[in-house]
């Protein structure tokens, strides 16, 4: 598959001119960190995420490749992770000398062993590459509304000519998932969540979480269930933003 260029964000930093998030500019070993960011094609779209510990901040940003993200954590020794299913790396620098302390693969990256039926970054990239219009609906039997309100999302997707793609929480058993959708019409395909791209966009924190794919782009997170009309408005707004038109 040809390389997918993810142009989700309006402004990209050019390779070689990577930036740190404002909170971390001027941090120890900045030069070394920026060099890695530039090589990885990290966007200047940093989002602060959950602090790993007391007095330690974490920021993450996408890169130009679907499913590859960078996260930096402000431990005393700066710590940077490149997350993607197969080629993840960790960098750590000595705060005094800025010598590289660690460089290599890491074991903890989720979604390394995707099954053919899973919803992967490759499938997401395929949707974007083919200029498909789709509503990705991430659900879990642990969250009531994500089951009971699935029909609303499905109907809205149909009304708006979007392919409806239900994606199942990767942590639950297939048995539990089947229990709650058994007998449902139309039947729900149990495609499991296996996407770093959606994971880093907080798609697995709350259920349902939804994303709109259109104009070769993926939208921001649509959080939770919504009434039909409001959902249509939100999706229309996200599609407009994907198209580059903003009001």
């Amino acid at each position, binding site marked *: 598959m040809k390389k997918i260029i993810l142009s989700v964000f309006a402004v990209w930093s050019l390779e070689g001119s990577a930036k740190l998030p404002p909170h971390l500019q001027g941090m120890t070993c900045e030069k070394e960190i920026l060099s890695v960011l530039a090589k990885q094609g990290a966007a200047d779209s940093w989002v602060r995420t959950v602090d790993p*510990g007391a007095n330690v901040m974490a920021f993450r940003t996408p890169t130009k490749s679907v499913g590859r993200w960078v996260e930096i954590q402000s431990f005393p020794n700066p710590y940077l992770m490149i997350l993607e299913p197969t080629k993840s790396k960790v960098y750590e620098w000595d705060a005094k000398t800025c010598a590289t302390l660690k460089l290599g693969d890491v074991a903890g990256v989720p979604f390394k062993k995707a099954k053919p039926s899973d919803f992967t970054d490759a499938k997401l990239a395929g949707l974007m590459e083919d200029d498909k219009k789709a509503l990705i609906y991430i659900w879990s039997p642990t969250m009531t509304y994500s089951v009971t309100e*699935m029909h609303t999302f499905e109907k809205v997707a149909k009304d708006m000519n979007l392919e409806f793609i239900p994606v199942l929480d990767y942590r639950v058993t297939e048995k539990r998932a089947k229990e709650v959708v058994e007998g449902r019409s139309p039947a729900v395909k149990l495609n499991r969540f296996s996407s770093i791209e959606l994971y880093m966009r907080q798609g697995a924190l709350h259920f349902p979480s939804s994303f709109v794919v259109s104009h070769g782009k993926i939208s921001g997170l649509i959080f939770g269930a919504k009434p039909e009309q409001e959902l249509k408005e939100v999706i229309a707004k996200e599609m407009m933003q994907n198209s580059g038109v903003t009001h």
Partner: protein
Amino acid sequence: MKTLISITLTTAIYSSAIFAECVPPRTEVAWPDDYVDFGAYHRVHPSGDYLLVSNVEGLGRSTVVILDLKDRNPDGTPKVIATPFANEAYPDSNWDLISSPYGSSTPPMDFYSFKDILKNKAALVAAGQENKARPVIAPVYRDESFGQYYQSIAELPGSTPKDKKICTLLYSRSSEKCYDFKLDDDGKLAKVNGQEKNPAETQAAPLCGQSQSWSGPVLSKDGSYVSTRGDGTTTIYPVTRKADKTATCGQAIVLPGVGSKVSFSYPNSAPKAVTYYTVGPYKDMSERRGVKIHNLETNVSFWLSSKTEITESYPNFTADGRIVYTDTKAKKIITIDPNQIDEEGNVKADRSSCIQVNGTKASPAPVTTPKAKSV
């Protein structure tokens, strides 16, 4: 049928040193795995004695049960009380009334009396654990004007068990609706000339004139704050309520690095804080699903759950400032006192902070080795 291992224990940390009158730093109760799936939506009684759990069963049928953490089965698991509630039922701050929405845009929103649940507890436990028919319990009040998702409820200052002044905030359109319930001793609508007196209520309207919907808005226990989540941050607005039932929101307080829906502490407990469930990576990039607290006075978050625990549900405060959450890996309900946890997640060796139930301080217990819970 799974084998239940019944464990009710206080962690070994202070097992030899706990004073009966003190709030222990941490207690654990085994999950009633035979009867209830974990679900993710939980609410906690102000005493910490009851845990409301929302779930979904076959054919997408919503069920809500209440676990009685004080009244246990012989195996030590909490009794499971079936309820007539649906979806994400949300109690008021004192658990007098419990709102029960029906989802989608379909009315109604029902309000049930918790006293009714307790009065029928034996039959409701039989329904929850023995698959017997659940007795019919009617709502105290049915609001036919709306039905919505993700409501939160604030109990306004001046509210009493017989004069309940509550406001519900709805996710959709960030609309708030307020009620003044006159209740009798049984928690039912009071009667005037033999007729039940419906609550005085306002029309649902966007809180603080919000023209855009907030994401995952939640009212604080007394309605003096509202929170809204965003990418990587959660924002809190102070809410000033006026006599004409309108409200204004003050300057935003940004909680950096939170990004989740939060649960507020009770107004008179300390610290002033929110607690939340979140997911973060370890240094080896494996995920950490756990519970954090954000102190609103210091603007600092720290982990409460240990890195060996896996939490997949919303934590909540009790009235005395403890936090209740579940560990789905160990299948336990955890109650923890954040006042006895330091900002690195360790249980404090200094027991001078031990809080008696009546609010006064107990004598310091002997110093013991703190439990290591570093990130």
